[in-house]
């Protein structure tokens, strides 16, 4: 089974490589390192949000408010930058992380303490957070000329051949890999989604684990909010509209079980890259970008079918136990 799970990620990598190769035959230079780096940079934010979403999903929850959180926090950060151009960037980033984490903690609190189903909580906060972005801005935009050059340039600065945005994503991937496999929190996340009853017996506080997963998801949305606003050089109420579903889609494609407890960092990253490659390929091979939504829909459905096959509960197999007992005896 370990092999099969590994091969799941291998399979996805293979598909992505085949897709890139296929697109390269239709569009000159698609597989060039420069273009691939571009695609990665384009997908960086999705990768980060998908990793946060995955942590939440591992605990048998879902966070549909990430994109709304990003919109509100992005608006707050952009407006602060416009109003106080002298504030150092670091302060703004800390502020983004803090606001994002706070909004995430509201979700986490409602799920943990009041035990409201996560999908209901985040459906509610999704409309609330985006509505608050409107209240905050009064519906007006923050445009590039109102932002400071540092605010706009840092994520684009190229270091060792890659923009800072890409480096941030790489660091987040490494950090999340570390968090999920090397820390008690990460293992609690897997356990509380995989077998909640057993997790309680093992002394794991499922509610608290979920709470921290939501805080993490919120903080990640906060970090991404700055990166998003800076990258697109604009902040308005509707930014990243529907992006919460992209993050769920990336997880599903990456083999993360919506029922919790199963999934890997590599899977989430590959699922995001899969969507990123498609998004970048459509214009260059002459397909209307409007087709992207339908294609991701089909891919999500296929991925769910595939996941269901892979996860099909084996149950206890009596005759197999017998067979193995005979072999070992």
């Amino acid at each position, binding site marked *: 089974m370990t092999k099969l799970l590994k091969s799941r990620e291998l399979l996805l990598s293979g598909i992505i490589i085949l897709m890139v190769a296929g697109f390269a035959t239709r569009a000159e230079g698609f597989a060039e390192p420069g273009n691939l780096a571009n695609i990665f940079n384009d997908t960086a934010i999705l990768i980060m949000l998908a990793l946060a979403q995955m942590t939440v999903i591992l605990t048998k929850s879902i966070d549909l408010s990430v994109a709304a959180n990003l919109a509100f926090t992005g608006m707050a950060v952009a407006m602060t930058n416009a109003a106080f151009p002298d504030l150092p960037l670091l302060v703004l980033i800390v502020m983004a992380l803090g606001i994002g984490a706070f909004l995430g903690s509201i979700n986490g609190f409602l799920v943990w303490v*009041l035990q409201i189903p996560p*999908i*209901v909580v985040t459906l509610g906060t999704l409309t609330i957070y*985006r*509505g608050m972005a409107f209240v905050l801005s009064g519906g007006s935009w923050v445009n590039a000329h109102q932002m400071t050059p540092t605010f706009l340039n840092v994520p684009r600065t190229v270091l060792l051949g890659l923009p800072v945005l890409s480096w941030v994503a790489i660091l987040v991937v490494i950090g999340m890999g570390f968090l999920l496999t090397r820390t008690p929190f990460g293992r609690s996340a897997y356990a509380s989604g995989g077998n909640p009853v057993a997790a309680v017996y093992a002394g794991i506080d499922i509610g608290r684990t979920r709470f921290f997963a939501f805080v993490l998801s919120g903080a990640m949305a906060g970090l991404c909010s700055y990166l998003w606003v800076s990258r697109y050089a604009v902040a308005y109420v509707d930014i990243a509209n529907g992006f919460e579903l992209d993050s769920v889609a990336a997880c599903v494609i990456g083999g993360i079980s919506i029922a919790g407890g199963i999934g890997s960092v590599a899977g989430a990253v590959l699922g995001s890259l899969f969507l990123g490659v498609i998004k970048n390929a459509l214009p260059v091979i002459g397909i209307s970008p*409007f087709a992207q939504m339908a294609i991701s829909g089909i891919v999500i459905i296929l991925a769910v079918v595939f996941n269901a096959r892979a996860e099909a509960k084996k149950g206890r197999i009596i005759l197999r136990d017998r067979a193995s007992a005979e072999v070992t005896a």
Partner: protein
Amino acid sequence: MSQPQTTSQPGAPRRAIPDRLGTPVGRMLSSWEVLLFGVAVAIFIANSLASPYFLDAWNLSDATFNFTEKAMIAFAMALLIIAGEIDLSVAAIIALASTAMGAAAQVGIGTPGLVLIGIGTGLACGAFNGMLVSVLKLPSIVVTIGTMSLFRGISYIVLGDKAYGGYPDSFAYFGQGYLVWVFSFEFGLFLLTAAVFAVLLHATNFGRQVFVIGNNEFAARFSGVPVERVKFTLFLLTGLMSGIAAVCLTSRLGSTRPSIAQGWELEVVTMVVLGGVSILGGAGTIAGVVIAAFVMGLVTFGLGLLNVPGIVMSIFVGLLLIVTIALPILARRIRQASRS
């Protein structure tokens, strides 16, 4: 029938078991629906105090358009959620059905044909969802996130950034016509579908099976309930109602864009949950959803009269959703705490 000796516990006289406990009135007064009705009345009074334009028959009639289409979908969604499933693709079905009607209108198909196409598209989408969930046994929440992208995605492929218009004049009746005086066709349809779904859920074998599936799918299966067939039918019904809503909405707007009814799936789910349907399945009433529809309609209309923009209203809707679920939980906690 003689009873085995061992069953009667000493001193426990045989007694008849009553059919029900308490009086019908008592049961009714303690219900969620009555509480919600109180909220609706309070909002109605607050609105009429806050704005002089509120208590006007035509204004109130206009206000019903805020919820009639969504509520029609909410009735079907209520059954689906009671059965423990969900359909997040309803708004996307509206987009696809509306696009199909728009395309048909361009080639000169008349009003009856358009209605059939709209409803047929809804049914087809519902059947597709139902097949994925009941035949392939996939979790409905992710499946319908996928079909939501797929259905609306097809609309985007067809329409891009363009729009369809040019519907026949007679087509306008469904979204703009009036039955008598201030009562619109949509409002009539809303009342009719409410009655149909109330009967279906509360007075038929099918409705009973829906409740059993939502409470314990295993027990339902172990009792011979055709679980898969019931679920498929529910997705079909949700598709049908989305198709009907698409006809009404398209008729009312007179045009189709791929972004039509964007975000409605959340409002529909909110309406259902606000109506007292348990998001975990197994409990709920159509009456509750009807009152919830009025509550949401009154809130948006009242705020609209006070010139509050739509997106800010959504804050209230989101708050309403969370607070209405959190309050009973908190109340139960407090009751338990005070008892011990």
